[in-house]
């Protein structure tokens, strides 16, 4: 299968530089996204009940469902981080990352639109803000958009250096 690179016609040297550099760049992106999930999940696994309350604070589902999602989410995040770290099924992991991030951005946006005063709980904590604290929805959404870009890059170019995927590809 030929890999078609979507880029404007440029001089042959820069094309070959792109070809040799891209998989390494991809490795950086993959490890970066892995770190995001590992840190986000790791900060929450110690307090699964608290994670459920953070989900509940978004006020979009019954508490019993929020509790289950809040408990499952940190472990799924850690698992996603591990898959990306070793580079197994990168395209799938990146695709699921895209889905999760879109859901997170939607959740924060609706909280913002409804004027809820909550902490996003993205990296632990979460829940309603104390009196006098103001929400930081804008920066939270921008940050998630940045992560979304990383995930999309990996969906488009999943094969990166130092990954199980590319090792299997060569075999």
């Amino acid at each position, binding site marked *: 299968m030929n890999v078609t690179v979507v880029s404007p016609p440029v001089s042959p040297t820069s094309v070959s530089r792109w070809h040799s550099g891209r998989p390494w760049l991809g490795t950086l992106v993959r490890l970066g996204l892995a770190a995001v999930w590992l840190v986000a999940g790791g900060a929450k696994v110690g307090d699964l009940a*608290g994670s459920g309350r953070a989900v509940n*604070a978004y006020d979009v589902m019954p508490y019993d469902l929020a509790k289950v999602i809040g408990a499952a989410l*940190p472990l799924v995040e850690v698992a996603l981080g591990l898959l990306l770290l070793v580079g197994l099924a990168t395209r799938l992991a990146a695709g699921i990352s895209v889905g999760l991030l879109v859901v997170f951005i939607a959740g924060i946006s609706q909280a913002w639109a409804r004027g809820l005063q909550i902490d996003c709980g993205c990296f632990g904590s979460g829940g309603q803000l104390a009196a006098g604290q103001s929400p930081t929805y804008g920066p939270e959404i921008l940050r998630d958009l940045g992560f979304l870009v990383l995930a999309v890059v990996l969906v488009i170019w999943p094969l990166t250096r130092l990954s199980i995927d590319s090792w299997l590809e060569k075999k």
Partner: protein
Amino acid sequence: MSTRVGQKKAARVVRDQIAREKRRSRTLWTTIAAVAVLVIAGLIGWGLISAQDSGTYTAPPGAVEDGTGIKVGTGPVQIDIYEDFICPACGTFEKQTGDTLDRLVAQGKASVVYHPLAFLDRASSTDYSTRASAASGAAAEGGKFREYAKALFAQQPAEGSAGLSDDQLIAIGRSVGLGDAFAQAVRDGKYKPWTAHVTDAASGDGVTGTPTVRVAGKDVQPTTQAIQAAVG
């Protein structure tokens, strides 16, 4: 076209087909493996939280019927106060509004249900929220919930600290007249399952932060004025 070229071409077609087939099955298997990892991770989380939930609790005497809080007074209007013993805003609220609540109770205007929940266990290194709430349950058993809660807020530890030790919790209990049964209940963590119940029930009732104040079931700003206005 010579036969040799044709053979080469045919061989390449076969090779490509085999390679495609291999790639397809590899993608299938890595996908199955990855999905399995994610599903198992999610199920582990679910299993852990379900295990935490299944504990049975004993509500202390003085608790409301469903065990979600301690009722003080018999006034007609019910005020619900959701507090966490380490939450700084709750400490401030107690300082500013605690006396008003006691007065409303004394005047027979309102009854107050205190829900000492543990949202902020991660704010201390020793799960102070849970330990303090469980100790307040033990104080309720000794008939001194309100006195004890006030004393705890008066000596509220800072967020991010280790909180008060069990010995300190017991000493504060003795200072308000609680005895050995109280001390034993604190040491045994007798009311910790009750704290979990109070916390979970509050979340189920839509409480997402502390202090939360409800008068006759409606959210009210946690200020003296707002509460007095709502009670009427």
